């Protein structure tokens, strides 16, 4: 079962079992959900989708809002800022599509900047789970609160869930080894890229609030590598805050800030962005000094071939 299928099943269950839960959709997802008196489909009207969720929240409901990433985060961005944030009410926003699941659909259906723009607003808890079991965990927790929560579903998925919240160190390297932080579905490729490298590998699925203290504690050397499956550098400023009082170097991997005019498969996008194992490996080697500066990483070669 994909993350998205798991989410629909969880949302249907929540509507049945919790009278506080309501759901607001704008067509996307309607066909996958059983009918329910508190499931409102507003048609293709995403600004209204957020406004209605805010109104329900003002009256004490716990709204779940869902659509494709650009249509839940970007199209109604001012509604997210004002109808939710400025009214000081909460909702659970659940996107599907991640950065390039819709690779064939082109730029209009992709929003790799979603986490960055939501993180620019105060009060958001942001989850980028890497496995359907992690979706279930963060969703269940979100249902019990009344805060603003974003859950980013992805068709890319790790082969197994990681148990534990916050920064989870999966593998310890030497004292000099870089600390590689893989976010959500980037973990699989990161583990493959670092299999025979001296690296400490940690996993993070909840990127806001950012675990400053845990990052500081996990770093023994000076090199930090972020592998984020969305806009490169989204959490770079958070790393700077975490390590403000110690010298460090930071490499931020992710989807480049560029108009990327290619269709094709998600795996081709992943490779072109340097987020497959070979691309991550090449960037890491350059970062730790094994490859002289100036030599193209594998990802550049792939993109041009």
């Amino acid at each position, binding site marked *: 079962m994909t993350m998205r299928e798991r989410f629909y099943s969880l949302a249907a269950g929540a509507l049945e079992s919790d009278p506080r839960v309501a759901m607001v959709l704008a067509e996307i997802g309607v066909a996958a959900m059983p009918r329910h008196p508190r499931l409102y489909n507003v048609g293709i009207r995403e600004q209204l989708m957020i*406004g209605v969720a805010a109104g329900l929240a003002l009256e004490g409901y716990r709204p779940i809002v869902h659509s494709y990433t650009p249509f839940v985060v970007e199209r109604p961005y001012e*509604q997210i800022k004002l109808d939710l944030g400025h009214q000081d009410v909460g909702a659970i926003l659940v996107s599907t599509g991640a950065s390039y699941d819709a690779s064939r659909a082109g730029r209009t259906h992709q929003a790799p900047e979603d986490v960055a723009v939501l993180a620019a607003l105060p009060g958001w808890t942001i989850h980028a789970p890497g496995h359907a079991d992690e979706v279930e965990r963060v969703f269940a927790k979100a249902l019990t609160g009344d805060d603003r929560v974003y859950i980013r579903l992805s068709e890319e998925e790790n082969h197994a869930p990681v148990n534990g919240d916050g920064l989870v160190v999966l593998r310890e390297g030497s004292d000099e080894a870089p600390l590689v932080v893989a976010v959500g579905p980037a973990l699989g490729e990161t583990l493959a890229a670092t299999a025979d490298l001296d690296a400490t590998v940690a996993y993070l699925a909840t990127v806001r609030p950012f675990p400053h203290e845990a990052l500081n504690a996990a770093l023994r050397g000076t090199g930090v590598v972020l592998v984020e499956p969305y806009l490169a550098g989204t959490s770079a400023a958070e790393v700077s805050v975490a390590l403000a009082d110690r010298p460090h170097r930071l490499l931020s991997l992710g989807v480049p800030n560029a108009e990327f005019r290619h269709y094709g498969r998600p795996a081709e996008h992943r490779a072109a962005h340097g987020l497959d194992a070979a691309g991550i490996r090449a960037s890491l080697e350059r970062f730790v000094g094994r490859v002289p500066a100036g030599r193209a990483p594998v990802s550049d070669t792939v993109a041009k071939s």
Partner: protein
Amino acid sequence: MAIATHLGYDDLPELVTALTGDEKHDRSVVSTLDVLWVLYDRVLGRDDRFLLSKGHGPAAYYAVLAAKGLVPVEELAGFGGFDSRLGYHPDRALAPGVEISSGSLGHGLGIAVGVALAGRRTFCLVGDGELDEGSNWEAVQYAGRIGLGRLTVVAVDNHSSTYHWPGGIGARFELEGWSVALADGHDHDALERALTAEHDDRPHVVVAEVLP
């Protein structure tokens, strides 16, 4: 059941002057004063919600809230000050009695649809200029099609929309399935009749014309 009266309609000009420090009242204040008074004095019950979507020129709103004992009169003079709870656009986290924070146009009506879906009798005030914002029409269309009878919109029409509404604002709501009433925006009895008119299971709009 109307909210208990504290001060009367005749006290409002003085309260507005306390806010603005000016005896000559701004157009955006004058346009909504009577509608707000009728709502709070004659229409709204304790379980109802009133959402001021058009958060511009809120002096009239604060004056009415003060007259009804929801905002302390002594706070009016601090209007817009650093520590004031009363800003140039209302903030529900600060101002007592304020149901939504507003100022950016075209947000209140969508929220009002959600409040009404939750089961509340809900009133929402918009301006004719505000209706330029497309987000309003997402709400108008949806509320009309699903027959959201708990929702009443007051559209204060002081002809401030640059490109106007040829054929009238009411015609647009009517096309979307709303019940429509027209009223002189300064005539209290007419406003009360329009706001409390029977409108079965359709949402209701009162177009309150206020000549500029």
